[in-house]
């Protein structure tokens, strides 16, 4: 809401500077977002000096002027041929500036002549109504200076952010009244001529058929008006508030709306069939061509103002084109009403129209303001539109409004605020918001009709705190019992997880929860894949953020791309976040997932090692470290079933026979679609399942004393067929139930000469340890010989 200080001053004497007024309002809960200077906002509207004038033969109606702004000299074309002459200092708008008439100034050319801006009339400069006359500035003005500075014209406008509960502040008068509440500066009374409440008999009929939609409907007839341009002061005030002048009648309705907050609507009386005005719900499928040029179809929930035959206005929102006021209108009917805010809001949303009028009705207007608004507009119509006749005021008001009685015990104020505002202060404040009576235990308040936001004692407590000043209420610390619960086990688990990954060198990323459905397509998922059954947004901002993610992988790949194209050639990232699956009810299944990604180089260029790319053993190694730190046994089953992973470099991850995720290298073909010319490894794990396991392990955890007696190891080195997997040998070793065996590990693999083609040499190390003594060499040798023999036999191994 824009509040010109000059207009505000008509209602209240401002005793401080506009900046201080802004501060008072802001600290009173009426936030001033901006202090604007509309003339300055127009751009460079400056004085220029005319140096030369010539009137070329080939430009009939134009003169070319050579002018200077004190720095540069340039040409300007003008139609004001007769008025321009050398040495004159005139108002001028530079290209890119705006005129009062909302025109954007541009460089123009006619034939070979160019105009680097335009001369201004007083009207175009927003100074007076003179449209034809050039704005001529005093002789002593210096070229280049702002015309407003030269003429000493300035306007300051406060731009307020009004909270939705305070519809009463959506007017100049409302803000003045609020300033009065906050400061006790005197409010100037509203004076409307009394005679205006009289008038001739109303020549038609008004009826409210839908009393749920319309609480009060008032109106008046005006005869033989003149529709023309509004006087300059009205135009200027509308302009200061950001509205465009249209004609005097429309401008008056807007003027009163801005001034008093009461929306009005003017009808062309001749177009009202049967001289009947009905406030009713729309018929199903009833249609109306509206002022914005769009024909809309209504439902029974919409409220319309209709005549005997047709809907004329979507009530409180926008009028129809046919019955609106035009240049040829002679008689008008002026409506001032109070509609049900809920109904207006629903219609406004249904039809996606918000107007100055619907905005105010939604936030509720003052029921008493209906008549004021009508009287104020009447005064203006008589004066400005020169109405010859006018009717009495018709006021259909079936159930007059009465404010609730709110009882406010003093005790409650103290308990709520934790502070006792002095009783006289409380009474003074409450008197500013309603009729206040002292009671045995406190106060009874009947809020003023414009303060319908005050309904319960707590609302009054806010008024007390607000008007007394939030800053003046002390700050204390709550008293409470000491008991409190620490973070949940799951949060702790999540923290542990990310700390491990961080120490492994991974950076945590956060990507959007909504993704492009195409990014899932790119993963080449099978039709029946659960991840393609995603939840769609009904109103996405863009198609690339239109479905809720069912996997973290697309977001991670996007992040890899973003970095790859910014010369990051090595990336280790992870994300912990929810993925979303539909369920049978409204809420989704939102399991927490972990995604990790490796891209590009495993190390940096160094003097001590060769540069190498990440490979599957990096990914596996990181995941093993993670699971080991969590003390959870995960099976890495080779060959993931995920279609986007290279089969030969991938795993499905199992926990006690249940699949909890996957890990592997992304297929090059998929990377190509992202233009990623490097290698990418990803893994994804369902943390819900992992967490359950972790919680159980944590509970059962006991710490063993480190071994007392030394261990000893033996190696088996042999040559076996290349296809034999180390895992097979280790699995076989497990079946042997070897006594004292602590650990087995493959420590060396070698292929190449002198080992024959198709074979490899491997070394497997066995560690032995007894808990209660040092093992004897012979004893270990005996065990190891048997083990070696079994391995040699089982895998047809040859000694090296």
């Amino acid at each position, binding site marked *: 809401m824009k509040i010109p200080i000059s207009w505000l001053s008509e209602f209240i004497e401002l005793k401080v500077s506009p900046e201080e007024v802004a501060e008072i309002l802001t600290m009173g809960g009426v936030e001033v977002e901006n202090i604007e200077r509309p003339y300055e906002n127009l751009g460079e509207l400056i004085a220029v000096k005319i140096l030369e004038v010539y009137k070329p033969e080939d430009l009939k109606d134009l003169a070319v002027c050579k002018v200077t702004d004190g720095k540069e000299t340039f040409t300007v074309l003008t139609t004001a041929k007769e008025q321009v002459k050398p040495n004159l200092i005139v108002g001028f708008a530079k290209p890119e500036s705006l005129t009062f008439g909302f025109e954007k100034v541009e460089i123009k050319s006619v034939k070979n002549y160019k105009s680097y801006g335009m001369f201004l009339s007083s009207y175009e400069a927003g100074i007076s109504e003179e449209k034809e006359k050039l704005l001529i500035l005093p002789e002593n003005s210096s070229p280049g200076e702002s015309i407003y500075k030269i003429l000493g014209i300035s306007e300051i406008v406060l731009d307020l952010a009004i909270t939705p509960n305070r519809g009463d502040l959506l007017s100049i008068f409302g803000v003045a009244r609020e300033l009065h509440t906050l400061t006790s500066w005197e409010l100037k009374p509203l004076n409307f001529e009394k005679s205006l409440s009289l008038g001739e008999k109303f020549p038609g009929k008004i009826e409210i058929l839908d009393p749920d939609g319309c609480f009060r409907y008032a109106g008046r007839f005006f005869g033989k008006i003149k529709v023309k341009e509004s006087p300059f002061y009205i135009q200027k005030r509308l302009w200061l508030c950001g509205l465009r002048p249209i004609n005097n009648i429309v401008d008056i309705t807007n003027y009163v709306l801005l001034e008093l907050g009461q929306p009005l609507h003017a009808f062309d009386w001749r177009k009202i069939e049967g001289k009947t005005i009905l406030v009713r719900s729309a018929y199903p499928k009833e249609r109306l061509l509206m002022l914005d040029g769009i024909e809309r179809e209504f439902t029974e929930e919409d409220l319309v103002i209709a005549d005997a035959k047709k809907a004329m206005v979507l009530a409180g929102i926008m009028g129809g084109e046919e019955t609106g006021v035009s240049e040829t209108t002679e008689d008008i009917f002026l409506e001032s009403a109070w509609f049900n805010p809920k109904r207006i809001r629903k219609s406004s949303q249904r039809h996606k129209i918000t107007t100055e009028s619907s905005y105010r009705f939604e936030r509720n207007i003052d029921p008493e303001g209906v008549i004021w608004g009508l009287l104020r507009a009447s005064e203006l119509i008589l004066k400005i539109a020169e109405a010859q006749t006018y009717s009495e005021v018709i006021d259909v008001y079936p159930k007059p409004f009465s404010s609730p009685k709110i009882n406010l015990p003093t005790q409650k104020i103290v308990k709520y605020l934790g502070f006792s505002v002095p009783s006289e202060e409380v009474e003074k404040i409450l008197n500013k918001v309603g009729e206040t009576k002292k009671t045995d235990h406190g106060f009874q308040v009947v809020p003023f009709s414009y303060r319908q936001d005050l309904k319960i004692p707590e609302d009054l407590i806010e008024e007390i705190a607000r008007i007394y000043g939030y800053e003046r209420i002390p700050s204390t610390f*709550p008293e409470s019992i000491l008991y*409190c619960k620490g973070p*949940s086990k799951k949060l702790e688990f999540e923290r542990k997880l990310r700390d491990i990954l*961080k120490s492994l060198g991974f*950076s945590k990323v956060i990507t959007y929860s909504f993704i492009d459905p195409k990014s899932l397509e790119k993963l080449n998922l099978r039709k029946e894949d659960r991840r393609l059954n995603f939840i769609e947004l009904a109103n996405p901002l863009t198609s690339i953020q239109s479905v*809720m993610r069912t996997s973290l992988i697309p977001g991670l790949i996007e992040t890899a791309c*973003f970095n790859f194209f910014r010369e990051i050639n090595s990336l280790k990232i992870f994300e912990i976040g929810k993925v979303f699956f539909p369920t049978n009810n409204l809420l989704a299944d939102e399991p927490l997932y972990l995604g990790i990604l490796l891209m590009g180089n495993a190390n940096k260029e160094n003097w001590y090692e060769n540069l190498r790319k990440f490979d599957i053993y990096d990914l596996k190694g990181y995941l093993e470290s993670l699971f080991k730190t969590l003390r959870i046994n995960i099976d890495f089953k080779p060959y993931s079933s995920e279609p986007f992973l290279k089969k030969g470099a991938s795993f499905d991850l199992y926990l006690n026979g249940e699949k909890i995720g996957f890990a592997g290298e992304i297929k090059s073909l998929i990377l190509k679609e992202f233009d990623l010319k490097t290698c990418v490894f990803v893994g994804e794990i369902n943390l819900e399942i992992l967490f359950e396991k972790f919680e159980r392990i944590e509970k059962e955890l006991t710490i063993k004393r480190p071994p007392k007696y030394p261990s000893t190891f033996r190696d088996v080195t042999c040559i076996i067929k290349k296809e034999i997997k180390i895992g097979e040998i280790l699995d076989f070793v497990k079946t042997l139930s070897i006594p004292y065996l602590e650990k087995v590990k493959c420590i060396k693999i070698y292929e190449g000469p002198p080992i024959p083609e198709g074979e490899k040499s491997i070394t497997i190390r066995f560690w032995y340890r007894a808990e209660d003594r040092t093992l004897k060499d012979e004893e270990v040798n005996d065990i190891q010989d048997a083990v070696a023999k079994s391995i040699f036999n089982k895998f047809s191994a040859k000694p090296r």
Partner: protein
Amino acid sequence: MISDEIEKLKKEIWSSFEKIEDLSQLESFRIKYLGKKGKITSFLKLLKDLPLEEKKLLGKELNELKDELEERLREKEREILFKEEDKDLGLDLTLPGRSLSIGTLHPLTQIIDELCQIFSRLGFEVVTGPEIETEYYNFTALNIPDWHPARDMQATFYLKNGALLRTHTSPMQIRAMLERKPPLRIVAPGKVYRCDADIRHSPMFHQIEGLMVDRNVSFSDLKGVLIYFAKEVFGEKTKVRFRPSYFPFTEPSLEMDIECVICKGRGCRVCGSAGWLEILGAGMVHPEVFKAVNYDTEIWQGFAFGLGIERIAMIKYGIDDIRMFFENHLLFLQSFK
């Protein structure tokens, strides 16, 4: 006289001992004097022909000399070995080390952690909840019926089944109160969503919600807790101010501003000449909200607050484009180590 000979030997030994500089000299010295055919050994052999008294005396002297010499040689050897290790200066110590890089947590994660820790110190329990919500939890139970213009304050993403992406963390107030009995203190961090995208707005961002319900917890207490919070996050000298505001689910409502950390209140591009930065919204829990969870408003009252994590991070680190948080540029992430 043999004793003179011995005196001479002593002198010789100590003066040549001083000249030992490396291990080979030390070894030849040892052989020369202490070896099987060494000088001291030879002297000892000579003693056997001397009278008993003299043999005893000189023998003792020679053995003491031998012991001392051996001791001194051990010391000398250690000294040389120590120096020996300092001799090789062949390594190029200007080369960088074999470093490992540690990862980083996302700046928003770090801020969330910090805020949760601050409120944990005050006994607030950290809770989380669903990101896909119903109209009821996100609006209706929070005293925002569907006809209410306050719904315009939050542009909502709807899902095709009629559910929505929560527009604030406030539904957690309702969920937490339904799951618990008063008194209670919770904070709920998490992702929230609004149909809005520019350099100041992201369609997905993070908030943290706080709620305290108790018998006497008051507006003054709310102020106290918020001031504590602001000083913990922005420093002990942070100035704050409280402005009346409006949220349908609190009454009275307030917004807290801190003095602009960039211009210290003089006015700048970031705070838009006001000198203050809006940090959070808060208020006393509206009775309608208590009604929705069946808490007796005769006994219980409380306060709630909510704030944007990105905003705190942007102010703390001087970031002017919210989208940077979700681009995840590695260099950006690593600057928050």
